[in-house]
């Protein structure tokens, strides 16, 4: 990409206003919750009150005869379809079959003329359960006598996103195991000048996409059409194809605007259930979950981590070892990949010569865990970045200087077999430290911390697109990437406008309709700008190549005589813009040229990760010693993004992610009492609000064009979350001298630690 560096940009690297701005501020932007189909019925779900139970019988006859009820779907109605789905392992029944595995699992669905009629009929479904002993924590799940959640063997899914095996489905409660190892850890710890060791806990959290899961399915003789709030329509299509045994061409997923995703709408959620409802009712069916139900659908994996880290006498980190137990809940969903990623991300963005990380996720009778912004990274960055500070304190070094000494350097192959590091963490750290006034005097009860993370991006390169140049010179991008709010509908047209030399306003986007838009594996793992952006760039260039050939034909000259200029071509005196090229080629002012691109794991994308997602955050907190309450005083984010196609959008991702991370650091946690989730509502699950934000916020981007994406871009949007919980814990330690090794750092937890410190 070095040839691109000197280039002046016309459209990219500018904060052009969002393409979806007007629609979103006028209430006109369509979300699935807003859609209605002709003849549509509504579904409501009956959920299990038990965490682990055998279903003895279900009698839905009373509910089926209620006014307005069209049909009831239970385990007794699944003949003719394959009811188990899952892209990693097919362990998830679309509705409970024979047993329930968590309190809140769908057991029956009523389909009725109205949502209210469906809801009112739920209590007339008679389900008899035989309770089983629940398994609630990884520790319980590992016990010899632990009841098994899954007795069946499962098929591993071809699209699990990594090359290793899946452990699930082999007659234990283990969902996935993964380990990495290099050097000689035992020997290194023996030789170490200093070692820190500790146990850490990262909580279950809820992403709270403000639009709860929603889907409308129309299953008929022609196949399946589903409107869904899914991030990855093509992955959902794959699951539905196998549930209904249909060719891919007869399964259509359409995703309009999505009201927040943050990973929680990755992969398949309620689509198989609502499709089965439509299949049974023989008409379109809408299923809109409530937020309380969404909280019973997906959460993040909580993680119990034991970790130790060692330095030599010169302050170089020489070893890290960790054992992680993750709690994946009742079904695997994407947790096998979360395990793989959290294992890798345990190393942090540090060059450590001796590493042993062992990770194991376990099925428990709790809400299924899956992707959550940064998948797996925040879970292990809490221990990882806490230990960097703990070690620095132990050897009497400034934690900022200690990081500067140890972070991976640009181009360094710090993680065996992976892409050399493509970020500049020292530069990033310096900016973060300066932004929060690292070296300035601190008020009493205040503490600061800077921390970083580097993630081997989960972005798997399998992406295609079509860029259509119309006869009037305007452009339509056909993309399988979903607009979740991250700004793909703005960034992708910026790239096409840059390449084709057409006005930004004349580039439109059609997205996420599997019947129309070319394949894109997913919209997650910070991939869209890098992978879909590259696809749009290449497809635009391919369209230009075609138009050069057309221009030569029109002008009756050789192709070599055509020179490409911005927005068109030149040949001697003759100059044609794209509109003229296409119109003259077809001899009518209509028609189009279609530029295509296929991205796969080859060429510059052959080595994984496609990029390292690196970022730093800095915080200053103050702690009220009377109450244990933490106040955020300052926040700085530094996104190491290569090149920001739209700087305002990139910064928006960073502060959004940092705010989510702050929520986990301060108060977010799904709390179980026994088998029941006790804070399963937004009344009880505490989220960041306006008044939680620090007064001083600085957002920085580092743009060294060192990524493989368009113009040197890399992905962003997860990394600022990852280090926040550790940052808050570190800053609290520096403020009041207590080391807290679990998130969130609630006032009670801090107050108790302060009380213990005083004794």
């Amino acid at each position, binding site marked *: 990409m070095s040839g691109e560096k000197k280039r002046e940009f016309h459209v990219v690297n500018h904060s052009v206003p969002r393409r979806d701005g007007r629609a979103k501020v006028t209430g006109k932007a369509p979300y699935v919750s807003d859609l209605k189909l002709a003849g549509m019925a509504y579904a409501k779900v009956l959920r299990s009150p038990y965490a682990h139970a055998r279903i003895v019988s279900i009698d839905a006859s009373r509910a089926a005869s209620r006014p307005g009820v069209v049909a009831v779907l239970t385990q007794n109605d699944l003949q003719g379809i394959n009811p188990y789905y899952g892209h990693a392992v097919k362990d998830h029944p679309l509705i409970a079959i024979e047993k329930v595995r968590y309190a809140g699992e769908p057991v029956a669905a009523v389909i009725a003329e109205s949502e209210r009629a469906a809801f009112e009929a739920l209590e007339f479904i008679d389900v008899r359960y035989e309770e089983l002993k629940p398994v609630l924590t990884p520790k319980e799940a590992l016990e010899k006598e632990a009841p098994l959640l899954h007795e069946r063997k499962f098929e591993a899914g071809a699209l699990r996103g990594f090359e290793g095996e899946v452990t699930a489905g082999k007659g234990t409660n283990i969902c996935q195991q993964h380990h990495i190892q290099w050097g000689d850890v035992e020997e290194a710890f023996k030789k170490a000048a200093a070692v820190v060791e500790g146990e850490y806990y990262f909580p279950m959290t809820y992403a709270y996409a*403000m639009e709860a899961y929603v889907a409308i399915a129309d299953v008929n003789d022609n196949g399946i059409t589903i409107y869904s709030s899914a991030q990855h329509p093509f992955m959902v299509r794959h699951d539905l194809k196998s549930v209904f045994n249909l060719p891919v061409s007869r399964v259509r997923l359409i995703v309009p605007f999505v009201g927040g995703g943050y990973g929680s709408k990755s992969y398949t959620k309620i689509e198989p259930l609502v499709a089965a409802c439509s299949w049974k009712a023989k008409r379109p069916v809408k299923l809109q979950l*409530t937020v309380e139900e969404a909280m019973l659908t997906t959460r993040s994996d909580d993680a119990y981590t034991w970790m130790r880290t060692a330095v030599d006498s010169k302050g170089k980190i020489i070893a890290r070892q960790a054992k992680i137990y993750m709690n994946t809940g009742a079904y695997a969903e994407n947790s096998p990949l979360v395990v793989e990623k959290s294992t890798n991300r345990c190393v942090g963005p540090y060059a450590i010569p001796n590493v042993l990380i062992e990770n194991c996720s376990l099925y428990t009778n709790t809400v299924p865990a899956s992707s959550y912004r940064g998948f797996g990274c925040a879970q292990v960055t809490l221990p990882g970045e806490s230990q960097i500070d703990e070690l620095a304190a132990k050897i009497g070094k400034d934690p900022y200087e200690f990081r500067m000494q140890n972070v991976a350097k640009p181009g360094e192959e710090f993680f065996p077999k992976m892409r050399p590091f493509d970020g500049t963490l020292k530069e990033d750290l310096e900016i973060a430290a300066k932004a929060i006034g690292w070296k300035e005097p601190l008020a009493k009860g205040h503490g600061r911390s800077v921390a970083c993370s580097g993630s081997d991006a989960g972005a798997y390169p399998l992406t295609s697109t079509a860029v259509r140049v119309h006869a009037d010179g305007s452009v339509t991008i056909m993309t399988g990437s979903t607009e979740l*709010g991250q700004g793909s509908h703005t960034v992708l047209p910026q790239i096409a406008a840059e390449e084709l030399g057409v006005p930004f306003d004349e580039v439109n986007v059609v997205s996420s309709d599997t019947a129309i838009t070319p394949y894109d594996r997913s919209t997650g793992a910070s991939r869209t700008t890098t992978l879909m952006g590259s696809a749009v760039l290449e497809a635009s260039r391919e369209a230009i190549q075609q138009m050069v050939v057309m221009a030569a034909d029109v002008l009756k000259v050789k192709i070599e005589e055509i020179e490409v200029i911005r927005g068109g071509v030149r040949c001697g005196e003759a100059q044609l813009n794209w509109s003229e090229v296409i119109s003259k080629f077809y001899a009518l002012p209509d028609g189009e040229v279609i530029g295509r691109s296929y991205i796969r794991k080859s060429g510059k994308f052959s080595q994984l990760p496609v990029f390292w997602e690196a970022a730093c955050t800095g915080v200053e907190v103050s702690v009220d010693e009377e109450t244990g309450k933490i106040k955020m005083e300052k926040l700085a984010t530094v996104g190491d993004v290569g090149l920001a196609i739209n700087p305002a959008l990139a910064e928006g991702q960073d502060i*959004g992610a940092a705010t989510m991370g702050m929520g986990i650091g301060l108060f977010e946690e799904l709390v179980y009492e026994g088998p029941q989730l006790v804070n399963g509502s937004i009344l009880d699950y505490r989220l960041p609000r306006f008044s939680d934000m620090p007064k001083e916020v600085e957002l920085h981007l580092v743009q060294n064009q060192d990524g493989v994406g368009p113009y040197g871009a890399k992905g962003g949007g997860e990394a600022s979350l990852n280090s926040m919980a550790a940052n808050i814990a570190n800053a609290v330690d520096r403020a009041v001298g207590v080391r807290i090794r679990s998130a969130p750092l609630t006032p009670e937890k801090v107050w108790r630690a302060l009380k213990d410190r005083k004794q």
Partner: protein
Amino acid sequence: MTDSKQTLQLNFQLNGKALEVECEAQETLAEVLRDRLNLTGTKISCEVQVCGACTVLVDGLPVSSCTFLAYEARDKNVLTIEGLARPDGTLHPIQQAFIDEFAFQCGFCTPGMILAAKSLLDENPKPTEDDIVHYMDGNICRCTGYVPIVRAIQKAASGMAKKEK
């Protein structure tokens, strides 16, 4: 909606126009707006009056339409996001400021956020940053980290003040 339940006739001003609508007694204002009037700009999220996504203005004051009975809006003035821009399409200064300042991402909280901000600026045209934070604290945004929203409201306030002069 095929249930043979008792319905009532409601009259209120909606976005400046007199309106009569039939609904059941237990229907919330959000249900009437979204399901009967097809005004889907009003969003439903938490349904327990803590997120602010469903905020509409009733006689100029913000209410959570998800828990506000439609009946309570009788004979009143209801303003939804659909009624905020001018009929010629010109955006309200708050709407424009939200675009200019990148004060939303997914956009799901935005209609409620903008209407709450309008109510604030109607009541207090020159709010301090603390005033904005205090007034807006009942509206949750999961995407933006709030900072650009505060900036957008400040920008709208100063733009509207200049216009008045």
